[in-house]
């Protein structure tokens, strides 16, 4: 045992070092990002993008990166789809397992490897958009600190059967990870990727500052599913940026069951006519969990379609914030944009905040947004009771049905079943302590 216990430095104190084998452009991007992180002021009360947020959750001092441990155990626990097209497992951002049955023409690599072998390709797509929903400082921290992630590139006209699956684990107390997922689809191609985020342990605090960057090429189809099931001592910032070219279609889905506090920022840029973006989310907070979701549907091009559906079922003292904006640029005529946030209130102490917004600078536009907050009506419970179902079970059934409605929009049975398993785990967890 060493005489002096050496603490690894906190992530906020020293500039992260880019490993020497990575390309120079990436090292300079990381250095610039670190300077940007230092220069960007921290969010404060009164900032519109942090309205209703718990700013105190943003104190990340004391977290540090840690090497992977318990690797074999975690590989065994990394169950997901029955037969994924490829499977990657990361523990504390370190790749510990990889298997692939992907056809030629698909690049599916850990980001650290792709940066070396496909440097130009990664550079062309890596973090191109500006983070504008409030977390610019943390996006900069992510960019400066990330060491690995998932890079997927699909060639033109290649339709990938099956699903690429990545597991991201946090191990150890006060560990921070910076998972990065970059997916690029070529013309008329198709791919589906699932990211699953979990903690090795039930109680050790962790931090994840994650980023997923989706770029759907012309006439391609890109589906992305994120399952966030960290333990309830972990905090999460997850930033999504999606760009769709002409006639492309992208689905971005996120399930939140874990974390003590999670902030999701999702931005879709509709860059080509005929493109489509579906932004979907299911959140089931309980105890004192807090989910803070901000979305932006940016219609740059005319004739594009975006549809957002977020559903929250709130238990106990949980809290949700939904702030969405549909932004139609001048000249983006013939836009169809929809936004719906529904809150199902399952306790008398939960709190749902909704800020659905529209900014329209074009005409010949069809836009609507809706937000509702309500509880299950007594009639519905009575109906199920009359069929011999106990009230507690009846409430669970209705809440499940309420969530599953979003899931069906994924239109893939295996992935739906996988997500549903996490949803049911959460409901079991809630039911087991008599909620």
């Amino acid at each position: 045992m060493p005489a002096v216990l050496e603490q690894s430095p906190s992530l906020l104190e020293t500039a992260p070092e880019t490993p020497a084998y990575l390309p120079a452009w990436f090292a300079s991007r990381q250095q610039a990002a670190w300077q940007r992180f230092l220069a960007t002021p921290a969010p404060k009360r009164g900032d519109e993008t942090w309205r209703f947020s718990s700013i105190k959750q943003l104190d990340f001092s004391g977290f540090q990166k840690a090497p992977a441990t318990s690797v074999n155990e975690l590989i065994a626990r990394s169950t997901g789809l029955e037969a994924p097209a490829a499977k990657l497992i990361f523990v504390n951002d370190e790749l510990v397992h990889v298997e692939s049955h992907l056809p030629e023409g698909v690049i599916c690599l850990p980001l650290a490897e792709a940066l070396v072998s496909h440097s130009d390709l990664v550079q062309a797509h890596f973090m191109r958009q500006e983070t504008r929903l409030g977390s610019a400082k943390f996006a900069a921290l992510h960019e400066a600190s990330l060491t690995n992630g998932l890079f997927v590139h699909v060639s033109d006209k290649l339709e990938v059967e099956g699903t690429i699956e990545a597991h991201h684990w946090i191990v150890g107390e006060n560990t921070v990870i910076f998972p990065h997922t970059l997916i690029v689809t070529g013309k008329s191609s198709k791919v589906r990727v699932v990211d699953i985020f979990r903690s090795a342990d039930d109680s050790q605090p962790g931090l994840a500052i994650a980023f997923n960057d989706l770029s759907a090429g012309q006439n391609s189809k890109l589906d992305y599913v994120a399952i966030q099931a960290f333990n309830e001592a972990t905090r999460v910032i997850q930033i999504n940026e999606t760009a769709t070219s002409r006639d492309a279609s992208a689905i971005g889905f996120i399930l939140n069951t874990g974390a003590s506090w999670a902030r999701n920022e999702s931005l879709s840029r509709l860059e080509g006519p005929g493109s489509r973006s579906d932004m979907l989310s299911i959140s089931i907070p309980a105890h004192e969990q807090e989910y803070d979701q901000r979305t932006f549907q940016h219609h740059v091009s005319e004739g594009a379609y975006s549809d957002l559906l977020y559903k929250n079922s709130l238990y106990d003292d949980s809290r949700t914030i939904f702030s969405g904006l549909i932004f139609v640029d001048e000249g983006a005529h013939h836009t169809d944009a929809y936004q719906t946030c529904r809150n199902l209130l399952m306790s008398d102490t939960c709190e749902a905040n909704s800020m659905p917004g529209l900014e329209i600078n074009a005409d010949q536009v069809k836009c609507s947004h809706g937000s509702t907050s309500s509880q299950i009506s007594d009639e519905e419970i009575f109906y199920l009771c009359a069929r011999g179902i106990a009230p507690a079970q009846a409430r669970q059934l209705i809440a499940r049905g309420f969530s599953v409605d979003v899931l069906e929009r994924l239109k893939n049975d295996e992935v739906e079943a996988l997500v549903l398993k996490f949803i049911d785990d959460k409901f079991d967890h809630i039911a087991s302590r008599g909620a």
Partner: protein
Amino acid sequence: MSYDTTDVLDTETREAIDIDRTKGDFTFPERNKFDAGRGLTSATVDYISDVKNDPDWVREFRHKALKVFQDKPMPTNWATKDLENIDFDVIRYYLSDGEKPKRSWDDVPADVLETFERLGIPQQERAFLAGVEAQFDSEAAYSNVKEELTKQGVIFCNSTEGLKEHEEIFRPWFGKVIPTGDNKFSALNSAVFSGGSFIYIPKGLKLKQPLQAYFRINSENFGQFERTLIIADEGAELMYMEGCTAPKFETATLHSAVVELVALKGAKIQYVTVQNWSSNVFNLVTKRGIAMEDAEVRWIDCNIGSRLTMKYPGVIMKGKRARGEVISIALANTGQHQDTGAKMIHAADDTTSNVVSKSISVGEGRSTYRGQVHIPKHLKGCKNNTECDALLINSHSRTDTYPAITVKGNRHATQHEASVSQVSDEMLFYMQQRGLNEGQAMSLAVNGFINDLVREFPMEYSVELKRLIDLEMEGSVG
């Protein structure tokens, strides 16, 4: 398709959906006995207090408010940057001819009388109003209420008279619904307020005819800061209507009012505004009502004029089963920004609120809906419904919606819905097939869009609205 490109439509549509903005565009020479000069310091506040012979508590209230105003930043972290164009140092904060409000139009100075004659006020009073107050710059020129109502205990006077002669009713509620520090402009108003109405309706009295106030700015660079307090005692009911106009000056003018409504148990207050300020007026108004048990407060709001309007009428539902409602129509033309909305604060069980907002953006006009609904944890049975619909006429028209809804606990229901649309080609084509020209068709479509809300306005009164909507004609066209 863009309507900018068809020039037939451009003029015709504009005429069809525009309203007569020239009606209020005239001015008379100023003949002010009292003028607080330009800019705002504590000397300005003292000057106003001296002229008005304020009691000490009012003077103190004004000075405190001035401090709050100076300390508060502009709310540009969420509001438009256009606010920064207000130059508080060139504004004139108090102007009056030193005359008391007259009870008879015969005693009103000829030019002031002519102003209000041209706006049609005396004629409307004879036709259907229970009482009228007409404000010219800082002070009321005319104030009268039907004699039998005075006998029944109705008080209808200006705020200066209210705070001096009815202090026992006025003071307990003054500044209570909207505290001085509520926002920068309520603080400004509290420091320099002058004019506005004080109304008290005694227990159980239900006014059959509406009371009206008319606000007129006559002088350039003038800031109008009226202060209205309306108290409806238990079971009382009234409808209050306000109209506003100003001539079009070269430079910007500021209107910043504070309106407080108090509806005691079972009372009902309807407050109707038709705002047609000229298009260089900054109209920054704080309006809020408090509704006790079983009481109801309704704001019916029509914003047509001004350069920038920021107005979010609110209702605090303080007693059980209280009800709040905001019905609003906004029309934003080129150079205008109508930033309107509603605040619904539920503070008791079984309270319900309803917000219906419709806006039309024409040319490069911009309309914004901003709303807040708050339902705290310890309550049950609260309900809110919010609907916002926006209609865009031209390709450079703009509309935004920013609601915020907080619901705590599972014993409530809220719903919010918003839509944005424009008049479809099919709709116009259909109507043109039936012999309407494009302009008439557009006009009919716009009328249809706001038709259900227009019913909420008292028809006799809505002179300005009439041309916009032409309700009576609707059945007979086509």
